[in-house]
């Protein structure tokens, strides 16, 4: 023991005396500090953010835990260095014969060293905790702190970081000890990384989350799974104590770590040669017998030699080939690339998944998915092999021979650069092959090889070449392998921290660009130009760096600054100076050109500056103009000229205004879109104007009327404006008016009357920072004033609409309404549309080169305007439209239009949006979906289409007031309607799968809520509430009340409020109709689902069966049921429960359960068990098996059934059916035996 302690002590002292140990600590300290400082608002100009959510404290357990765990992943590099060094340094320093001949037992020596290495690595990791704690002592924003306890640091270190470092250390210690080299360690590190990446990739499909939780070696995915539904309140309060899955994950990986270490101890040999488990399979190298010297000398023939440029070229060629072989023949390269390919395959398998349903692997989806996954490996290859190539000759000790060869200095460096680029180029081929195979394997044969090649070998290479040159330049100029590696890694890591510190402009960030989005419809569109200019700019800088490398590269055995400077002067030939000056001039020139485009032609605005503008607008106008009487728009008549190839639009029109107030209006507040490239040619209120004030900042025009507008008076406002998109921007590009697939809405071109509240800052802290008073996100549900406007537009109600839209001659332009006339003039096509029904003041204008697929529903035309290649799901859409129209007209009432049009637009946005008789639909969400088997995949094409059609009722026939709950009337009811259509088409099992995602989405959504969660009745345009919770609530309601009953209520709601407003209906109108059809014993449902936030926590503890005398099976389920109410501030309290909950007993497997018994029982919080009788031996059973209730943890609802002991208990009676509860067949088979059982349901 004393020997052990002295070795251990020696090791600890050795590491603690090394500067690097403390540098590692310092780095993590600094990163921890920066993180806390960034989130806590210590950087000037960057406000505090909280931990991903303003309500999650930066010192909460989850913040401190997640941050320190993620940082400990970066520590893998440190652990590799320390643990690897610990095992390998005797070999590296050729000390091993001395060490191995000491009488210390191997295990003592190794274990002492390992424990010391582990502790030293942990010390480095504690730097993060120390840095974060120190950051918390600084004056961070106090609104974002308040949860700190020591436990928040102890738990993650004990449960995650400690074991993770142990695992990584064990792996690296063993690998380095056995191979006696350091490099293989990096490969081990990459293996761990792949485990983590594969795990996070798998979680996108709900079915895989348990697997993913187990295979993540770091447990981070497991932790994410455990905390995924935690609301901010819980995040601040709950410690990261493990659940069963976390314990399992930790157990598995600790076992792996222990096994690795054991193997390492076994495999590390205290002998001259290392452990070679494969040696007996290898051919022993044959002894090289020494030949006798030839008696007479051989004459070496003379050879002519070349030293000109042709020789240099030949030398460049052979050196490039040599360097390329050195990389490609390196077995670690194969390992890195192999890791990349593995990840590619996982990715390819899961590509473009939505609701667990994949998309067709169209080229851009495949390339995006694969290059994203592979990018990290390309970075790894560039990082490692830039250094390796630059140091290759010196590492092999042939540098002196090569350097003394008669070739120009540039040749060798040029060869290395070429080789590195060629390696990256070759790696693109892997993506190409995997990509094409992915396409083939899903039966997709529309190969766009040209696009593959351009993306991979063109655009991707433009990304990588500057980075490869940068890495080579860093290594050449720094001329110290590890320091240079550090700088290269720092560069790549630094890119990730850029946002945190508030740097937004791309100009100083090497390699960055505005981004590039490819659309099948529009190609690279407007993105390409700016992207290419940026890439040219970085290429110029890369060449400057490369020239500098040529000037500073070390040739020979001296590397002192003085010698390099002398050499530099010698190399500064006219060519050298010319290259340096030329490339620098190009870089500076391109930089200036970029600056001109991003900051002068276009407006460069920091996110924070944009918020300042919103605050200024509010301060300038709200007091006087919010709610001030303004005329109302009665009719809209527009002429919209779209110019796709130049990205501009000219719009003019007439708005018929009326003063529908009781008092005259003396000043009109008319807001034109502000912005650099909006040119207002004309804005005339159609009444004599005494004075006009124009605020160019916000486009606000105040017209003081010569004669006030009398009540009831009408006027015609005329306007004409142009909008263009010159140059390119720092980020993003024009996505509305584009070459093919323009899509703008009326809000972008039509002037707005009155102060618009929509632009106000809503974030509490953004407002606080700008001294704005606190405000509610939306007007109160019971605010009568708010019902005066609908939530779509504040200056119009139901309008008349007409528009002439024009576009270029090869495109079709579409607006709501019916095509009256179509003509050509001056090489442009004109389309005149007119709407014959009243519609909302919200219209769309699209133009593209469309193919049209037509269908009909009882003679009503259905037209799908789509990209000619995107015809795969068009029939499915038409079918969904037909089916939707069937269902909605049958249950809700007539469709107000005479046509349905679906219009594809590019994937710059991924939504579908319902306008009157017109539904723009993004290419990314339905047109490329691949729904093979509706039993396995969620048919979201059908669903989205049905949802949008439902909006023709829910939004376009009845629209809510501009207040809380408005979106229940449009979104929740559309979601419900689509579910019903989908259920008719695909059956209940399909809906169950869909609702699983709804439940997951709702629970995740509330966890990410930035302000406060509200009951459905009061939803404030919160997606997770009006979509996901809305779907769950209304589906449960129809499950209990019956579909017909609920639809009856909805139909009555429509009858009462169709095209009404102002005042506009509210969610109370919906609830009133639903309450009217709900029997008193179910009234708790309305209360739970609409009026409050209610969660269940139901769990099946066990299921045991015994055979009854008549050969049947009595299954007893031990249960736990709990119902919780959640306040607006997120605090939970249990409430009494006596609710109808489904109980089921099953055979089959968990993915395809077949019910033996399925019925609703009254379950209360005191219900401990339920017994039912079934005919077959059950396999599993549980409570609320289909997740109809909003259960906080739906994974624990089912348990496997096992045989129990004792006599068969009598069965409990299911709750009496209410309304028409339709049971599936097997349920009807399941009879309930004997007398009515004791009442297990508590009141």
């Amino acid at each position, binding site marked *: 023991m004393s020997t052990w302690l002295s070795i251990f002590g020696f090791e600890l002292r050795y590491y603690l005396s090394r500067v690097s140990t403390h540098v590692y600590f310092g780095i993590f300290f600094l990163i921890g500090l920066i993180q806390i400082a960034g989130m806590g608002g210590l950087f000037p100009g960057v406000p505090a953010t909280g931990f991903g959510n303003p309500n999650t404290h930066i010192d909460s357990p989850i913040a401190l835990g997640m941050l320190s765990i993620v940082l400990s992943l970066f520590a893998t590099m440190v652990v590799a260095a320390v643990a690897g060094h610990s095992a390998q340094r005797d070999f590296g320093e050729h000390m091993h014969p001395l060490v191995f001949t000491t009488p210390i037992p191997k295990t003592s020596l190794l274990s002492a060293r390992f424990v010391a290495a582990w502790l030293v690595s942990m010390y480095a990791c504690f730097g993060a905790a120390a840095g974060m704690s120190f950051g918390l002592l600084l004056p961070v924003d106090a609104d974002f702190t308040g949860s700190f306890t020591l436990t928040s640091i102890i738990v993650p270190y004990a449960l995650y970081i400690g074991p993770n470092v142990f695992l990584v250390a064990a792996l690296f210690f063993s690998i380095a000890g056995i191979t006696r080299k350091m490099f293989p360690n990096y490969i081990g590190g990459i293996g761990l990384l792949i485990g983590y990446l594969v795990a996070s990739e798998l979680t996108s499909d709900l079915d895989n989350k348990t697997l993913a939780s187990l295979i993540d070696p770091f447990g981070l995915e497991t932790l994410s799974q455990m905390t995924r539904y935690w609301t901010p309140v819980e995040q601040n309060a709950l410690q990261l104590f493990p659940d069963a899955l976390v314990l399992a994950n930790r157990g598995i990986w600790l076992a792996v770590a222990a096994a690795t270490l054991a193997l390492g101890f076994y495999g590390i040999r205290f002998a001259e040669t290392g452990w070679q488990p494969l040696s007996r399979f290898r051919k022993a190298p044959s002894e090289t017998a020494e030949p006798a010297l030839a008696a007479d000398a051989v004459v070496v023939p003379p050879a002519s030699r070349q030293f000109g440029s042709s020789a240099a070229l030949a030398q460049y060629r052979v050196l490039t080939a*040599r360097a390329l072989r050195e990389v490609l023949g390196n077995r670690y390269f194969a390992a890195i690339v192999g890791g990349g390919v593995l990840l590619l395959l996982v990715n390819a398998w899961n590509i473009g998944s939505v609701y667990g349903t994949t998309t067709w692997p169209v080229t851009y989806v495949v390339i995006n998915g694969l290059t994203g996954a592979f990018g990290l490996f390309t970075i790894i290859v560039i990082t490692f092999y830039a250094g390796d190539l630059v140091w290759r000759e010196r590492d092999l000790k042939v540098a002196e021979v090569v350097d003394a060869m008669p070739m120009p200095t540039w040749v060798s460096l040029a060869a290395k650069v070429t080789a590195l680029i060629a390696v990256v180029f070759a790696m693109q081929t892997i993506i190409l092959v995997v990509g094409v195979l992915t396409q083939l394997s899903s039966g997709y044969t529309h190969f766009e090889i040209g696009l593959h090649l351009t993306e991979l070998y063109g655009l991707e290479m433009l990304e990588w070449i500057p980075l490869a040159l940068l890495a080579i330049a860093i290594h050449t100029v720094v001329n110290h392998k590890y320091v240079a590696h550090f700088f290269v890694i720092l560069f790549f890591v630094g890119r990730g921290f850029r946002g945190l510190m508030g740097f937004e402009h791309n100009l100083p960030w090497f390699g960055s660009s505005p981004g590039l989005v490819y659309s099948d419809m529009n190609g690279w569109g407007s993105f390409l130009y700016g992207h290419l200019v940026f890439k040219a700019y970085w290429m110029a800088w890369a060449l400057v760096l490369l020239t500098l490398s040529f000037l500073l590269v070390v040739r020979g055995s001296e590397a002192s600054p003085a010698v390099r400077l002398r050499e530099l002067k010698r190399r500064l030939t006219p060519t050298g100076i010319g290259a340096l000056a030329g490339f620098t001039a190009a870089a500076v020139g391109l930089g200036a050109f970029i600056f001109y485009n991003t900051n002068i032609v276009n407006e460069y605005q920091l996110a924070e500056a944009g918020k300042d503008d919103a605050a200024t607008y509010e301060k300038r106008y709200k007091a006087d103009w919010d709610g001030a009487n303004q005329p109302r728009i009665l009719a809209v008549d527009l002429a919209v000229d779209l110019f796709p190839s130049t990205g501009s639009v000219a719009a003019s029109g007439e708005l018929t205004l009326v003063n529908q107030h009781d008092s005259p209006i003396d000043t009109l507040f008319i807001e034109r879109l502000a912005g650099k490239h909006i040119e207002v040619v004309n804005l005339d209120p159609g009444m004599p104007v005494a004075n006009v004030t124009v605020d160019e900042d916000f486009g606000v025009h105040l017209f003081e009327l010569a004669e006030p507008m009398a009540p009831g008076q009408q006027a015609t406002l005329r306007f004409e404006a142009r909008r263009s998109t010159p140059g390119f921007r720092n980020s993003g590009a024009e996505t509305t008016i584009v070459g093919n697939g323009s899509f703008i809405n009326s809000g972008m071109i039509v002037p707005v009357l009155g102060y618009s509240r929509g632009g106000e800052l809503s974030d509490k802290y953004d407002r606080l920072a700008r001294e704005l008073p606190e405000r509610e996100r939306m007007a109160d549900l019971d605010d009568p004033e708010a019902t005066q406007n609908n939530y779509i537009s504040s200056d119009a109600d139901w309008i008349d609409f007409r528009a002439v839209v024009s576009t270029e001659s090869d495109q079709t332009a579409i607006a709501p309404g019916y095509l009256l006339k179509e003509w050509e003039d001056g090489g442009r096509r004109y389309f005149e549309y007119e709407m014959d029904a009243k519609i909302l003041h919200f219209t769309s204008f699209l133009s593209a080169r469309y193919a049209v697929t037509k269908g009909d529903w009882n003679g009503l035309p259905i037209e799908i305007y789509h990209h000619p290649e995107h015809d795969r799901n068009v029939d499915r859409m038409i079918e969904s439209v037909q089916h939707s129209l069937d269902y909605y007209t049958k249950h809700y009432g007539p469709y107000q239009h005479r046509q349905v049009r679906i219009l594809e637009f590019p994937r710059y946005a991924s939504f579908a949006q319902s306008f009157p008789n017109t539904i723009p639909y993004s290419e990314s969400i339905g047109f490329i979906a691949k729904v093979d088997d509706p039993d396995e995949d969620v048919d979201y094409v059908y669903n989205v289409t049905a949802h949008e059609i439902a909006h023709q009722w829910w939004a376009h026939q009845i629209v809510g007031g501009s207040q809380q709950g408005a979106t229940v009337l449009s979104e929740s009811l559309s979601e419900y309607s689509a579910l019903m259509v989908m259920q008719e088409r695909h059956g209940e099992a399909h809906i169950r799968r869909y609702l699983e995602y709804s439940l997951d989405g709702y629970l995740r959504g509330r966890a990410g809520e930035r302000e406060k969660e509200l009951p459905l009745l009061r939803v404030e345009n919160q997606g997770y509430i009006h979509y996901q919770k809305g779907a769950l609530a209304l589906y449960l309601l129809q499950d209990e009340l019956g579909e017909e009953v609920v639809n009856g209520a909805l139909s009555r709601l429509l009858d009462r409020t169709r095209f009404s407003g102002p005042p506009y209906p509210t969610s109370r109108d919906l609830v009133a109709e639903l309450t009217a059809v709900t029997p008193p014993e179910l009234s708790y449902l309305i209360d739970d689902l609409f009026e409050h936030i209610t969660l269940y926590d139901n769990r099946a503890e066990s299921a045991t069966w015994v055979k009854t005398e008549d050969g049947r099976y009595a299954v007893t389920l031990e249960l736990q049921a709990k119902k919780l109410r959640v306040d607006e501030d997120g605090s939970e309290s249990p409430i009494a429960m006596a609710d109808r909950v489904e109980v089921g007993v099953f055979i089959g497997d968990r993915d395809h359960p077949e019910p033996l018994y399925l019925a609703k029982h009254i379950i209360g919080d005191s219900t401990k068990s339920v017994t039912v009788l079934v005919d077959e031996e059950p396999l599993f059973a549980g409570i609320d098996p289909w997740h109809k209730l909003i259960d906080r943890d739906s994974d624990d609802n089912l348990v496997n059934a096992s045989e129990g002991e004792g006599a068969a208990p009598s069965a409990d009676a299911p709750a009496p059916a209410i309304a028409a509860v339709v049971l599936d067949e097997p349920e009807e088979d399941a009879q309930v035996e004997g007398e009515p059982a004791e009442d297990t349901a508590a009141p």
Partner: protein
Amino acid sequence: MELRIAGLSKTYPNGVEALKAVDLTIPQGMFGLLGPNGAGKSSLMRTLATLQEADTGTATLGDIDMLTDKSAVRRTLGYLPQEVGLYPKISAINLLDHFAVLKGITDRGERKAVTEALLKRTNLWEHRKKKLGTYSGGMRRRFGIAVALLGDPKLIIVDEPTAGLDPAERERFHNLLAEIGESSIVILSTHIVDDVSNLCERLAVLDKGQIVLSGSPEELVAKLRGRLWIHYAKRAEVDALKQAHTVLSTRLSAGRTAVRVVAAEAPEGFEAIEPTLEDVYFAATTGLIGSRA
């Protein structure tokens, strides 16, 4: 053609004076550069091989200014450094071909003939297809010589070529060197006196950065002739002898110690002995003969 070095000095950034005003003229033929470890041999070799800069002084090869016109030197240089590692996974013939291109032999046919001849000459032909990683130390050195000989160099610099070789390998290597010394300037740096005495027509002794002696082995041996005396002493007597005389070397021989001293006349108990080059080397490096600043 001659290599002339004049006033060549080199001080490293850490303050070590590797070369102090070295003057040396090296004619065609084998030239030995003798010196103990750390004498500055490799610094001088590397400077001549264009891999290092000198602070002051000149070096010319014929009419080439070696310190400024490095590329001209490289065209006529064959260099075998002290420590030569090679790409372990390539066969000898492929790597030699690779280096032949770097040496400017761009014609494929000529290259083939030259590499073939050189592999035969260095007796590696049998093993030409073996990977260099499997070569023994001696074979690697011979391969290094083959590389150095590519392109018919006029200046061949061989730094410590026999260090670590067994006697048989060393013998083979000497034979190889002897052949090539006929038509070029071959500078052989070594701390092993036998290498030089076997091979070189002329030599210089470098010590602490200075040339302390130079000339032909005969000339140098002559400097000690008649001044060198030997006595076989018991071990206990050695210290006393060292006090009393200028001892050049002491060496155990058959259980007694052979003590060599330098003196104008025979000290008592000593007898005359014919000096060897090794004696000269010892005398030079201990400052008994030769010049130093």
